[in-house]
């Protein structure tokens, strides 16, 4: 693929096809045919919404598209859906609204050698054992004992935090900051603690519910 290709995405309303800039209409049509033909069974019966990045489709082009899509047993949707894929592409640049970030809920103990990566927040209902690794772009909450490695805000979000009922990690990473457990044995933490970046270092403090 030398040029940008048509993007076909599933949304909750049906399929959406995004026509990128820099392609002639005949190229678009050919690409679309090839894609649809490769998975005819899969696409058949779906409602399709077409959107473009930078151009308006001429009535003639619209009609041709409609025909193509119908050939593969699909229907063109009436109007633009509330969340067109164009918006998805744009959202990358904007600062993400943390409150709306996705959260992954894990209902088990994460053991040595297991690694969880998630684009969003992670909540673990269990322990994170030494040798296990949790990496995510948002916050990490461990409703148990965190003894492994945790990396919150791995995309560079310095506001990310790591919370655990018992915070005894091998290593803590937030954004590009790293800290490790001390070599000498320290008394075990008694209550829930939270780690976040303060004054360019990772600081751990006892968790107070009114704090955040």
């Amino acid at each position, binding site marked *: 693929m030398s040029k940008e290709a048509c993007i076909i995405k599933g949304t909750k309303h049906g399929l959406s096809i995004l026509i990128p800039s820099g392609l002639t209409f005949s190229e678009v049509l050919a690409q679309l045919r090839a894609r649809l033909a490769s998975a005819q069974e899969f696409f058949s019966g779906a409602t399709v919404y077409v959107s473009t990045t930078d151009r308006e489709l001429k009535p003639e082009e619209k009609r041709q598209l409609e025909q193509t899509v119908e050939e593969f047993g699909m229907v063109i949707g009436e109007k633009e859906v509330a969340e067109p894929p164009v918006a998805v592409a744009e959202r990358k640049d904007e600062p993400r609204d943390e409150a709306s970030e996705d959260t992954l809920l894990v209902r088990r103990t994460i053991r040595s*050698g297991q690694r969880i990566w998630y684009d969003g927040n992670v909540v673990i209902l269990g322990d994170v054992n030494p040798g296990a690794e949790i990496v995510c772009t948002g916050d990490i909450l461990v409703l148990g004992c965190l003894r492994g490695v945790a990396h919150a805000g791995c995309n560079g979000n310095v506001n990310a935090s790591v919370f655990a009922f018992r915070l005894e990690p091998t290593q803590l990473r937030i954004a590009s900051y790293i800290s490790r457990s001390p070599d000498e044995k320290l008394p075990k933490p008694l209550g829930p603690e939270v780690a976040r970046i303060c004054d360019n270092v990772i600081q751990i403090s006892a968790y107070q519910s009114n704090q955040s």
Partner: protein
Amino acid sequence: MGKSIVVTSGKGGVGKTTTAANIGTGLAQIGRRVCLVDADIGLRNLDVVMGLENRIVYDLIDVVEGHCRVRSALIKDKRLDNLFLLPAAQTREKDAVNPEQMKVLMEELKKEFDYVLVDCPAGIEQGFKNAVAGADVAIIVTTPEVSAVRDADRIVGLLEASELYEPHLIINRIRPDMIRKGDMMTTDDIIDILAIKLLGIVPDDESIIISTNRGEPAVLDKKSLSGQAFRNIVRRLEGASVPFLPLEETSMVKRILRLFGRS
């Protein structure tokens, strides 16, 4: 150009990792530049035994996949400045690396260090093949048990197949009291079967368990008998001729004397 040594056994749990940690630390103690390489990908332990687990950022797989340079993956020991560890990846499997990549890595490390010690995983599959690739010398660890000796014999054969001849033997967890009663294979029995050069005998020692759990190699403990055994092994590796530890030393009287520091 340094020398690469692989520590292997075939059977699990005979003390490969402990042996690698102690020999590596012992060599560093007498001033050699040493790099310990954990080749047990997916079941790494060497970092724990060395007490360096919390310093790991990059690992061996990151190096062979080109995510970072060898230098940034090497962890400096907290006690000795000339001792380094290249940890294994824990979240990957043995097939994440191949023998060719290991050979390249070994060549690179040998330029920087006097000794490169590779801790081999148990078994004779991919992990073993990776660990053995690029090694100049092999040390086989066994315990005085029929099964461990059988596996060690298999390893000698496999090492010969990969053109690693004349491996050294370390017999670990010898219990002189049991040998005297005739309940345990003697060193002679074992050498009789394996017919390879004996590098050292390490007595069964509680202090090894304590030191392993603490992440402090026993070789650093002047009072530990097994530490003494490892110091002797280090000297033999360096070419010195050192007599083997007398096994009678653990008689009751001597034990009590040793308690009072009069060995």
